[in-house]
């Protein structure tokens, strides 16, 4: 079971690398901040805490997973451990997918840990929907981070590319809305800008529909909306994995 070994190694690395402590610190900080903010709120104190903790933990999960995956893969490359692993009788595909499964498993553990404090303010079905969606979203981020970690030569460019892509995907619906604003003057330049925004949007994951803080505040989404959000993440995940495998097979390591 070489794939299972790779998963176990990734989980072990996450534990020894202090990911659990960072997660705990993230939970403590966001809960403390929310408690402070709720003291100054004159109404909706509960939903304020839920919304702030949900939004902060989502961002923290993505940041931790992306930095962990890139640091891990860069370390393997820099220490020449990846080359040693490739010498083993294990196909590149299995090596790549095994690592990704390990990172996705770490991301799922992190999502479960981040969902627990939300049970203080939100209902269990909403928290469960949020947690599953966060696990899928962070698994996608792990796939993107693995792709950039292997493709780009250093940590900073790889992290910047992952974070940039993630943030752009989160902001894209608003950018599209602004681009299509009725107050914008119709001109060829404006049309070209709008068309480019639409094209870029086609190449990004639909993160705006996933892991919504609104689910925690106002209740879980409908089954159709939820399934559509998760399906969007899975489709994009398959695209990133395919791109990553393509690049990994072509690399001369």
């Amino acid at each position, binding site marked *: 079971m070489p794939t299972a070994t790779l998963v176990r190694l990734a989980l072990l690395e996450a534990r020894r690398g202090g990911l659990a402590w960072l997660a705990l610190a993230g939970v403590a900080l966001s809960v403390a901040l929310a408690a402070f903010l709720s003291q100054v709120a*004159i109404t909706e104190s509960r939903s304020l805490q839920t919304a702030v903790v949900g939004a902060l933990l989502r961002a923290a999960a993505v940041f931790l997973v992306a930095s962990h995956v890139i640091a891990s893969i860069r370390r393997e490359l820099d220490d020449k451990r990846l080359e040693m692993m490739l010498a083993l009788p294990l196909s590149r595909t299995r090596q790549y997918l095994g690592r990704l499964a390990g990172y996705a498993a770490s991301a799922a553990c992190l999502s479960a840990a981040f969902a627990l404090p939300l049970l203080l303010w939100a209902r269990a079905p909403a928290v469960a929907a949020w947690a599953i969606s966060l696990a899928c979203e962070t698994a996608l981020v792990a796939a993107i981070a693995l792709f950039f970690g292997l493709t780009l030569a250093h940590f900073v460019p790889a992290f910047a590319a992952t974070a940039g892509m993630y943030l752009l995907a*989160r902001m894209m619906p*608003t950018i599209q809305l602004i681009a299509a604003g009725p107050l914008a003057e119709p001109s060829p330049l404006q049309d070209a800008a709008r068309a480019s925004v639409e094209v870029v949007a086609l190449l990004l994951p639909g993160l705006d529909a996933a892991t919504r803080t609104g689910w925690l505040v106002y209740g879980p989404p409908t089954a159709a909306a939820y399934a559509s959000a998760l399906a969007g993440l899975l489709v994009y995940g398959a695209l990133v994995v395919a791109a990553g495998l393509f690049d990994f097979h072509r690399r001369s390591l």
Partner: protein
Amino acid sequence: MSRDERALSAVPAWVHAVLVAALAVQIGVRLARPGGAPAASDLPAAPPAAALRLASFDEPEAAARLAMLYLQAFDLGGANRLPYRELDYRRLVGWLRAVLELDPRSEYPLFSAARVYAEVPDPQRSRIMLEFIYEEFLRDPNRRWPWLAHATLIAKHRLHDLPLALRYAKAIDSRVTTPSLPLWAKQMQIFILEDMDELDAAKIMLGGLLESGAIRDPNEARFLEHRLEELAQRLGGKAVK
């Protein structure tokens, strides 16, 4: 976590000195910065809701509530004898509208509009806020009627504008279709036309809201009880005079 470290004495003395001096300067600089709540005149023009959404990386629920906390810091309990006297109410309405657009289901903006900003002892500002509440009520009457009900009381008892109060009361009666609308709210017109003082009317309304389960937040319940006590003290003072 273990690290191979050299003794503290291995660090040159000047590095210690620079570290301590830099820390002292940093603390000094921070202490020298003027603090305190922002002045009312500092309230900038409201950004479009889309810009707020963009700045929050598409977290509208969190952004709406944080924007309300930001907004309520302006001119709150400052040195002003009259609260919110310096606040530009047109800008304020712009902010409240943007926050509502960001999260239309949040009750925070209309709660603040009705219970905080409309209750200022300045009829002109109060009217601006009441009209904002009325306009927003029309967009979602079944959810937003409690704020217009409070606006109705303000129009009658603070502004002494009976036609305005009746206009709001009629709007509640004609626009709200939810079966959960309590009888007192449905019959608000009678309630307004009756010769009832502000405290009794406020008590009926608050009691009705608490009974119907519309107020669930402990901070909100505390705030409203405090307001009721203030109102009782104010009206009690008038009666003595």
